[in-house]
């Protein structure tokens, strides 16, 4: 039942915020705070309550100790919905779900807080849209019925579209429509793939259902599986975004209001990775194995291309947006490496990227509110004007480039180690991306914050709300950098379950040419993850 609250609280708070906003803007803001903080507290409570179970799943070894199949959820809820089409309201949570929910509500709260001063127009409706997005995101991460998943997947596009189109910056309408259309086309391709899968399963078993756990292991021709897998891949690769489907992202992130950018970069694009982990690979493991090389190529191109383009930007927000393309390249190669190290790295990367990039977007948004430009050519020496801001920006730039001691380093390191076992080239080229990351992060700091202040800019340093937000994000990143164990423990149950699901497929077989190395690596896998990969 608690799972339903995760969706209901923000969904109900949304119209309340709108009504409250008609009386006073402050009321709408507080309703929105409550609408995101309450489920956040619930997730934390559930996490603490389940910590024992999750840790047990972690220490237990051998088959059957943990798994994703029905019966091993922390909590689940299944109710009939549209019986005549075989659709049920099926939501469930495991470790990965908890992590994603934590992220959703935490960034939702941050999105509300960072709009405290920046949004002055139609405040009620704005918070309606933010809460609605959060509700949709919670639904996406909870849904296990494929129709329900698609339902939420599409549903949260609408409020996000409005957030960009109404409260956005210069080219807001163009960016909003581009975002909408990209996601919609790819989403519909996924829908066709889902429906086709349901029919294939239905013809074989006589049971037409959208229940993911039942559709697992559906037998079909390799060619069919490959095409259906591409349908899913299209949707998730656009969301992620993977090169060359990323072009909506710089526009949407740049023109979105700060809250929109935070939700987009922090949670929305994570759906791509989540969907691949949860649905695409378990449903079509063999097809994924066939596609692996291509995906690794796309991922590596994304890493390097994103980093190079980030370096070339003059608009600070666009720069941050392109870094997302680069970081999500790591996620893509990690998912397709599909060994425990890489998967743990991917999950960690999702969290750390959300925090570091979210913080950078809040930083740019704060700057824009103060000096009304994002053009780095008009900045310079800002550290002198606002030292607290400078220091904070430096921290998050370091996080973004993967400084050891911060969560992002652990995540990217785990991914690269995992990928190494599958493809040495991808790992090497991915590591090159880290060098580029250093260049763009330092370049951004250099142009905006270092040097002499020559433009006569004067503005207030970080406010108390901002200090609070940044401090909590810094603390989280440092904690994850030195002690990622809690997160790894939480995700362990899911990762093991995922690996079991695909154990019979060619995805689990080590590549022929590197059989020796990978077999050796498999033994180390559990151990290394157990050590948490802490530097």
């Amino acid at each position, binding site marked *: 039942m608690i799972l339903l609250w995760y969706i209901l609280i923000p969904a109900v708070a949304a119209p309340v915020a709108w009504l409250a906003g008609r009386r006073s803007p402050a009321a709408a803001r507080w309703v929105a705070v409550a609408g995101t903080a309450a489920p956040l507290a619930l997730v934390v409570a559930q996490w603490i309550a389940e910590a024992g179970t999750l840790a047990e799943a972690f220490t237990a070894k051998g088959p059957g100790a943990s798994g994703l199949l029905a019966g091993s959820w922390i909590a689940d809820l299944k109710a009939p919905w*549209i019986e*005549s089409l075989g659709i049920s309201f099926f939501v469930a949570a495991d470790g990965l779900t908890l992590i994603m929910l934590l992220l959703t509500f935490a960034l939702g709260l941050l999105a509300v807080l960072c709009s405290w001063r920046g949004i002055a127009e139609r405040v009620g409706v704005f918070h309606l849209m933010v809460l609605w997005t959060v509700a949709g995101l919670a639904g996406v991460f909870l849904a296990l019925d494929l129709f329900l998943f698609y339902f939420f997947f*599409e549903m949260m596009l609408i409020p996000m579209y409005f957030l960009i189109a109404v409260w956005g910056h210069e080219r807001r309408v163009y960016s909003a*429509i581009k975002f909408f259309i990209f996601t919609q086309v790819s989403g*519909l391709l996924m*829908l066709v793939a889902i429906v086709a899968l349901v029919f294939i399963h239905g013809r074989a078993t006589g049971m037409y259902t959208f229940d993911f756990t039942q559709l697992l292991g559906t037998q079909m021709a390799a060619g069919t599986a490959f095409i259906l897998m591409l349908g899913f891949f299209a949707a998730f690769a656009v969301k992620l975004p993977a090169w060359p489907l990323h072009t909506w992202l710089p526009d949407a992130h740049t023109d979105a209001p700060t809250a929109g950018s935070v939700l987009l970069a922090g949670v929305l694009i994570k759906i791509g990775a989540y969907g691949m982990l949860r649905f695409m690979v378990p449903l079509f493991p063999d097809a994924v194995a066939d596609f692996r090389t291509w995906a690794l190529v796309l991922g590596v191109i994304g890493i390097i291309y994103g980093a190079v383009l980030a370096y070339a930007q003059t608009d600070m927000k666009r720069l941050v947006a392109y870094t997302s393309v680069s970081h999500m390249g790591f996620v893509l190669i990690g998912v397709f490496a599909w060994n425990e190290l890489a998967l743990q790295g991917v999950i960690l990367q999702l969290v750390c990227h959300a925090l570091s990039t979210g913080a950078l977007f809040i930083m740019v948004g704060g700057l824009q509110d103060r000096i009304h430009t994002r053009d780095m050519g008009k900045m310079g020496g800002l550290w002198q004007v606002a030292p607290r801001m400078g220091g904070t920006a430096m921290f998050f730039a370091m996080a973004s480039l993967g400084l050891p001691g911060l969560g992002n380093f652990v995540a990217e390191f785990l991914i690269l180690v995992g990928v190494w076992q599958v493809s040495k080239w991808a790992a090497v080229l991915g590591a090159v991306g880290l060098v580029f990351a250093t260049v763009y992060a330092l370049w951004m700091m250099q142009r905006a914050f270092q040097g002499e202040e020559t433009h006569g800019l004067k503005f207030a340093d970080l406010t108390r709300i901002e200090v609070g937000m940044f401090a909590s994000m810094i603390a989280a990143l440092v904690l994850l950098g030195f002690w990622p164990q809690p997160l790894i423990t939480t995700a362990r149950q899911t990762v093991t379950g995922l690996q079991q699901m695909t154990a019979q497929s060619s995805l689990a077989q080590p590549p022929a040419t590197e059989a020796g190395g990978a077999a050796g690596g498999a033994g180390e896998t559990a151990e290394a993850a157990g050590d948490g990969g802490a530097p």
Partner: protein
Amino acid sequence: MTAGDLLTISPLIALTLAAVVVMLAAAFRRSHALALGITLGGLAATFGTLFVAAGRTERDVTPLVSMDAYTLFFIGLLTAAAAVVALLSWGYLGRLRMRPEEYYVLLLTATLGGATLVASTHFASFFLGLEILSVSLYALIVYAAYREDAVEAAVKYLVLAGATSAFLIFGMALAYAQAGTMTAAGVAKLVAGLGSGDVVVTIGIVMLLVGVGFKLAVVPFHMWTPDVYEGAPAPVTAYIATVSKGAVFALLLRFMLPVSTDQGSTVFLALTAVAIASMVAGNLLALRQDNVKRILAYSSIAHLGYLLVAFLATGERAGVAVGFYLIAYFATTLVAFGVVGVLSTADRDADQLIDYRGLGARRPVLAAVFTVALLSLAGMPLTMGFIGKFVIVTAGTGAALWAMVIVLVVTSTIGLYYYTRLIVTMYVRRSEETVPAGAAPATRAAGTAGGMLAVSVLGALTVFLLLFGVYPQPLLRLVEHAVSVLPWP
């Protein structure tokens, strides 16, 4: 024919009586409210008699009509839509410089024509129903006769409907000449045997399909749609888009059901081409329009294309898709044109994009209602349009109509562009924005009783769209029951 048969066809009788009573009442006492009241009463009575008819065991009355569950379902849908149109018309007609009573007579006779069409199992009742519908529509389209474009639209529709009738009659004659039958079952048999290569039969069936195609306004028979939609009064446009097309589609399904069984036949391929062309052309042509009614016209061409995909998918699942999509399309289209109607003045309909600029600030409720309708047309979740598109994709995928499903996916995304463009117009403030001069008088209708009534009807329809968009199960069951009586292969 027995007394019991009269009970069975009581919905048709109730509609006829209602039309006569409104006409007589108008002769004795000119009162807009009275005419509307009797119309609504008559439609409610028709709806009530559906349950009487549903209780009868013998549903076939003469070879001409069959009042089976399928018919009753569609008559229910048509009467409900007609009632909504009547309610929306009240405020609109109040602003026109015309006497309003005859409008309701025509509305009722048109609905009678539609009801006859969906009940028809014979060429005679088919043709009769179609002519009753068309003739009523000529007069309805030109109701605001002092507007220039109304006359143009009515003449266009007249010419078109005449051509349609000619095609239909010739097609019927050929079918009869070859098979010696005029019943739906006989035609279905002819259609099923199309593969045998009888040229006369093929020509006959194709001519019938051309006639139906004109009425449905699918490509390449769509040319009249934008002009007629633009020229007709907004409530009448809503009526043409829903009742007229819906009734013809229901008839198409009854007469031509076996088309979908042979995916290799020429007729099937021709219909595939028509469906794809409608989806592509409808959505592409809508992109270039600045007139809201024309945008909705082209979008309706595309929606009929989507419906054809469902029609061409074999089996009961396809029938459910058609039925459900029609309900969703009816509700959505009524809301969309209802909004246009509420904003219109005596001299012109609110069909320019500029009329909608800043609507979100001026009329927040109306803007919200229009937004929901547009999102439903675009097939976004939480609305019935989403479930409708989903059942069509399901039906198409189930029948392995890959080309059509992919085209549907791609073109409906193109559709997003012009739907969101309208939404953006309503909500996004441009820097140079002031309330445009042309739009100012449109807001005046807000305070009137007719405006209030229309807005509350639109609000109720929006709730309907959202409610069954989230929980479509009851409607799906209803549609399943209705289409189960058709002779599925």
